[in-house]
C-alpha cells in the first residue's frame, strides 16, 4: 500500500455514520468550534471528542463543504414553491392559546379513541397478504415496524457463488403486503432483466442467456405499501455451464 492508497482508503471508510450520542456537543458548540470562537478550556474536550466520533467529525466535514460550496445547487421552482407553501399550515403554537377546557376535551377524546382502537385485533405479521390485510392496514403495520432493523438480504446465491442456469434465487421476506422487483445486472451495471414478483423466490430463467463464466449482479427491491422501497445489496454471482 502506498501513501496515496492509504489516504484514499481513509476517504472510503468515511461513508457510514455512527449514531449521535448524549456526549456529542450541541449544534451551537460545534458551530462555535468550527468558527474558532471557543476558549482553550472548551476547545480541548471537543477536540478529544472529535478524534473518535464519526458523527461529529462528519458534522465538521459537512460545515466545511457547505462553506466551500463553489456553485449554488439548482433548485427547481416547483420544489421551492412546495417548501414555501409549508408556511401556510397553521403554526402549532396556536394551540397554546386555546382554553384549558378545550385541551382537556382533546385529551378525553384521544383516550377514548385509543381505547377503542385497542379492541380491534391487529392482523398477524406474515399472513397471506392478499387475503388477510388491505394495503392500508399493512401500511400502518409497516409504520409500526422500525425500518432501521429491516434488512432485505439475498439468501441465495451467496455473494460470489457460481450457479447454474435455472437455479433458485431466494431472499428474506419483508412483512406486509408488498411486492418485490428483481434485477439482474451486468458487470457494467446495465440492467439485463427485471421483473415484479410477489413471493420471495425466483427460478432464474434459462432464457436469460447469461454467459457462463461472466460475473453478474442481483438486486432485490421491496416496494412497501407507503411507496417507499427497501433494497438489498448487489450480490455478485457467476454462471456456470449447464450440467
Amino acid at each position: 500500500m502506498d501513501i496515496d492508497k492509504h489516504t484514499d482508503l481513509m476517504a472510503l471508510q468515511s461513508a457510514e455514520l455512527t449514531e449521535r450520542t448524549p456526549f456529542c456537543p450541541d449544534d451551537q458548540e460545534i458551530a462555535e468550534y468550527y468558527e474558532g470562537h471557543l476558549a482553550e478550556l472548551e476547545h480541548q474536550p471537543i477536540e478529544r471528542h472529535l478524534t473518535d466520533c464519526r458523527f461529529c467529525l462528519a458534522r465538521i466535514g459537512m460545515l466545511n463543504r457547505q462553506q466551500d460550496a463553489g456553485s449554488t445547487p439548482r433548485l427547481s421552482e416547483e420544489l421551492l414553491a412546495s417548501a414555501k407553501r409549508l408556511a401556510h399550515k397553521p403554526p402549532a403554537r396556536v394551540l397554546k392559546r386555546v382554553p384549558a377546557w378545550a385541551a382537556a376535551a382533546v385529551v378525553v377524546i384521544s383516550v377514548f379513541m385509543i381505547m377503542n382502537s385497542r379492541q380491534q385485533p391487529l392482523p398477524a405479521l406474515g399472513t397471506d397478504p392478499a387475503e388477510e390485510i388491505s394495503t392500508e392496514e399493512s401500511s400502518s403495520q409497516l409504520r409500526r415496524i422500525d425500518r432501521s432493523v429491516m434488512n432485505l438480504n439475498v439468501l441465495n446465491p451467496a455473494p460470489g457463488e457460481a450457479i447454474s442456469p435455472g437455479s433458485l434465487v431466494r431472499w428474506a421476506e419483508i412483512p406486509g403486503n408488498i411486492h418485490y422487483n428483481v434485477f439482474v445486472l451486468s458487470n457494467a451495471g446495465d440492467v439485463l432483466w427485471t421483473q415484479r414478483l410477489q413471493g420471495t423466490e425466483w427460478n432464474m430463467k434459462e432464457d436469460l442467456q447469461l454467459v457462463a463464466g461472466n460475473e453478474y449482479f442481483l438486486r432485490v427491491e421491496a416496494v412497501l405499501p407507503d411507496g417507499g422501497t427497501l433494497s438489498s445489496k448487489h450480490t455478485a454471482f457467476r454462471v456456470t455451464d449447464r450440467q
Partner: protein
Amino acid sequence: MQDDLTNDNGSGRLTVDLLHRLSSADAGPAWVEFLDRYSALILHTANQFEYRQDRSSECFLYVCEQLNEDGFRRLLKFNTKRKAKFKTWLGTVVFNLCVDWHRREFGRATLLPAISALPAFDRVVYRMVIEQGMNKEVSFQMLRADFPDLTRELVESAVIRVYSLLTPRQRWNVTIRNRRGQLARGRFSEDSVQHLPDPGTGPEAQAQIQQDIETLQDAMVFLPARQRLLLRLRFQEGLSLRKIAELTQLGDTNRAWRHIQAALKALFEQVHEKKSAETRKN
C-alpha cells in the same frame, strides 16, 4: 449563497430580525425569505446524502417540514447571544435532519454516495475520464458508438456529477496525477487516477479493499489521538491545511502540513508492522 450581516456576537441584524418575524403570528413572509436565503444550503447538504434528484428533493422537503414544525421551534432555538453565525449553526441543524431522514428512509445514514451508486452511463464516464484519463472529447467520440443520441453537454454534465462525488482530497489527487502525467508525456493529457479505489471492481477486489480498510483502522488505533484527528480531518473530511491549522490551533499551514506528514509516516509504519505480523503468522 447570501450570508447574514455579522456583528460582534456573530448573530447578524438580519438574522435577529428574521427570527423575530418567524416567531410572530404572520410568519409566512419570513419563512419565504428564510428559504430565499438558505434553501441552497439545505439542498447542498441533502445532495451530500443523495445522488438521485428525486430523493434529495424529498430530503430537502423533509428538512423544510421539520424546520417549519411547531412554529419554527428548531430555528428559534438559535441563541443570538452566542458567537456562532446563524448560517454555520443552521448547517449543523440541517445536517442532523438529513441524517434523520436518511435513517428513516434507509435504516442507516451514509454520506458521500459511492460511485457504484451512479447510473451505468455515469459509471462509464467515471471509468473513462477519471480512471483511464481520457479527455472529454475522446470519451465523447468513443461513447457515441454506444449512445447515438449523446451530446458533448451530456458528457460534460456526467463528468461534473462524478467529480462532485469525489472528496476534495481525491480531486486533489486527480490534479496532481494529471500534472505528473503531463510532465512524463511532455504534452497535455489527463492522466489516469490509478490509485483511486475502483468502485466497479468485482468481489475479490472489493474484499481486498475491505481488508485494507480494516488494517488501516487497526493501525489508526495505535496512533496518538492528535494524529488520528489530523488524519481524519485531512483525509476523511477533506479539510484544507488552513482550516485544519485553525481548528487544531496549530498556527499556520506549514506546521499543520508537517504534523500531518508525521502522522502519515507513523500510520504507514503501523500498517507495515501489521502486514509483516500477518505474513509471519501465515
